[in-house]
């Protein structure tokens, strides 16, 4: 790089020489505004990718914070027994319903009050919290108990229905897990076997035909695969296992088709890893009298294991983030089940369905899909980083 700059400036001053023949030659690098401006612009284009990442992290994080900071009002099944004057701090509560404790936020009509102490049917409160006005409330007004979305509930709850205050993301996560696992069960053996065949067995003409066909599979839009899953795979599964066992929308059919979608990824990345294994290793094994299968399975595959593992993890990340196939074929509505023949909505499928309608900003649904998106982003990012680490760390370097 330094040589180039030196060359450049010398060339520049040589061009100027005849004009200023008498003056001492200035060997310093001349400022070139246009060049600098162009370099600056190119740099900005490069930086755009960082801005994209920052944008993703910032927006997902901000809206998710909005989700967790959200106050949800639940009917406490309690009501005021005595009318409440604007300056009164004593609430007399009806019997039954959920218990109200010190520290709770309670909504009375449009006013929010903070409970300081509560004993049985009497509560001492601070009036007009969260910017609301302390006004008179008649007797028999219903009381709503305020509640935030807790992280514990988010990760351990088994029901997801933000509209009615159920915030357990587990059903969406298990559905994603089931479809991805089925996909990996299809893609791993088939992809690795295809890679071994292409790299170790296939003749050059056969490779030239087979490889592009596998690549075409990865070029088909995912919505087409979704159509395929619903109109081909599902009837096939229903034919094999019976229409009573297999629901019309089911995770198995979506998972199988995702497996086909990521198969080319697994096979082409694994094949790269296999062909990077030096020939001498194979020849040494043949010299020991090993059969072709033994060479492939016991020598070449172990030597390429890091590359194959990286391919598997990257494929897993693709399977987790796959959207249209599950949106079309896996079913609508969260369902906490591990049965692959049942319908269940995955994280991505839920995001697509919720945002498909006209989504109003600042609604609980809007915030909730960002919280799911953040989780999805973190999962795939983690898988990608692991994959890159494996390649860098465990790569066998041969001379």
């Amino acid at each position, binding site marked *: 790089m330094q040589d*180039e700059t030196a060359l450049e400036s010398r060339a520049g001053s040589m061009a100027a020489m005849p004009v200023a023949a008498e003056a001492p030659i200035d060997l310093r690098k001349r400022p070139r505004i246009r060049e600098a401006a162009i370099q600056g612009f190119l740099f900005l284009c*490069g930086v755009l990718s960082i801005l994209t990442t920052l944008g993703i992290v910032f927006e997902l994080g901000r809206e998710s914070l909005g989700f967790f900071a959200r106050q949800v009002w639940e009917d406490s099944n309690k009501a005021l027994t005595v009318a409440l004057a604007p300056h009164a701090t004593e609430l007399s509560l009806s019997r039954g319903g959920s218990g109200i404790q010190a520290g709770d936020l309670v909504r009375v009509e449009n006013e929010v009050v903070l409970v300081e102490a509560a004993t049985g049917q009497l509560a001492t409160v601070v009036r007009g919290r969260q910017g609301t006005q302390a006004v008179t409330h008649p007797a028999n007004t219903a009381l709503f108990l305020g509640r935030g979305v807790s992280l514990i509930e988010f990760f351990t709850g088994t029901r997801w229905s933000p509209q009615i205050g159920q915030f357990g993301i587990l059903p969406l996560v298990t559905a994603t897990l089931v479809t991805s696992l089925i996909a990996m069960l299809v893609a791993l053996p088939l992809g690795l*076997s295809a890679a071994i065949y292409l790299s170790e067995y296939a003749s050059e003409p056969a490779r030239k035909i087979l490889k592009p066909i596998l690549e075409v599979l990865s070029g088909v839009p995912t919505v*087409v695969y979704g159509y395929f899953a619903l*109109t081909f795979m599902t009837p096939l599964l229903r034919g094999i296992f019976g229409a009573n066992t297999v629901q019309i929308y089911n995770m198995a059919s979506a998972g199988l088709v995702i497996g086909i979608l990521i198969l080319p990824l697994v096979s082409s990345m694994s094949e790269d890893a296999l062909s990077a294994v030096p020939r001498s290793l194979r020849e040494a094994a043949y010299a020991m009298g090993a059969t*072709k299968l*033994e060479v492939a399975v016991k020598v070449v595959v172990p030597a390429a294991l890091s590359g194959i593992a990286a391919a598997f993890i990257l494929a897993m990340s*693709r399977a987790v983030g796959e959207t*249209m196939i599950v949106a*079309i074929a896996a079913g609508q509505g969260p369902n906490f089940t591990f049965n692959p023949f049942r319908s269940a909505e995955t994280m991505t499928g839920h995001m697509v369905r919720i945002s498909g309608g006209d989504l109003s900003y600042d609604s609980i649904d809007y915030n909730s899909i960002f919280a799911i998106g953040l989780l999805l982003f973190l999962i795939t990012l983690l898988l990608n980083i692991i994959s890159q680490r494996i390649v860098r760390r465990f790569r066998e370097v041969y001379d």
Partner: protein
Amino acid sequence: MARNQHPVGRSSSPDGRRPALERSEGSLTEPFTNNLLSRHRSARVGQMLFLVSTIVGIVVLTALLFNIVNSAFGLAAVQDKVDPTTLVRDAVLIEHQTKEQLVQVLEDNLKPAVFQTLKTGKPFEQRSHKEVYDLVVDRVVQPEVKQTWPLFDSLLHRQQILAGIAQEYPGARVQFLSWIDARFLVTPQSSQVERAGVRTAILGSLWTIALTIAIAFPVGVCAAIYLEEYARDNWVSRLIRTNINNLGGVPSIIYGMLGLAIFVRALQSLTSGTLFGLADPTTANGRTILSAGLTLALLILPVIIINSREAIRAVPGSLREASFGLGATKWQTVWAHVLPSALPGILTGTILAISRAIGETAPLVVIGASTFINKDPSGPFSKFTTLPIQIYQWTARPQAEFRNIAAAAIIVLLVLLLALNATAILLRNRYSRRV
């Protein structure tokens, strides 16, 4: 292991014969068998398995295409609300009637108010013969598809199907329908299967892709030039590189969320066009072609950058040095020598990225592409729908007939992709010959 057992490595053996003896003693207790027969058998079985796995891909691809073609053509039972033979005027079937006769048919069969609305909407004198004929079919005959059968059933079990139709839909006529035809390509969306087309979807797709290319191609190539030609090996450029690799692995739906939060919501005045006073009042909510183009551009940017970097890296250094040697500046070298040599590779990579963008559905659903729209998009600030979204909508409908037009739309999409990839190959061949 083998090295440890090597006789020379053992200092205890004076002549190197004892270890060999030891080993032969070992093999006496455990006789050596080479199992050649079974090993060869398993080798053959292994090879078969590997071959079968490879062929599975081909089988699936065949099944996919078969499935689509199977749904896009086939027999259909069509029930007319009014039998066309009752509309005969002067012993002429409606297919051969003159425009005036057709207008007469309309006047006789429609309610006066409806007829009047049609007339005031556009006088019949100004309508072509074809338009009037279509009106008669749509408004008077009102054909309705009762049931459809896939192509291969239609060919193999034609007799049973015909018998079934005669029993179930006595008045229906049987038609062999190709769901994809010229009419399908040029008619806008409709809620009725028989009249639905993909015109708006194709136009929407083309507009979106044009914007995506216009944004992503220059930015992507510039970023690649910076990384390959200008960037020193410091933490900034390393960060950018790692970041681009990671962005390539982010699920597309996350880009949709980014687009929704930034382009649709935060930059609403820009993307809906109110900033320039160009907004279509019905669409001024940011869910426009511009938002879609920007979102897809961010999505394919990593792919373009990675491919372009490889193409630029493949340009031999001697080319640059020759240019510098003649006194060219850095940018002159890049512009006049590096870029032209790298262009075929850059173009191929870009076109691959674009084919990905054309098939992309999830981010566009998230940023709120319209699901039903029958007006052509007129510019970057219009509402839009695209082919994949249309396919998704039709596939997701419970009525089976919509699967047929979804299959037809898939064929359109696949042909579009095929054309694009063919262009990529042609472009590459043409430019690589010139350079």
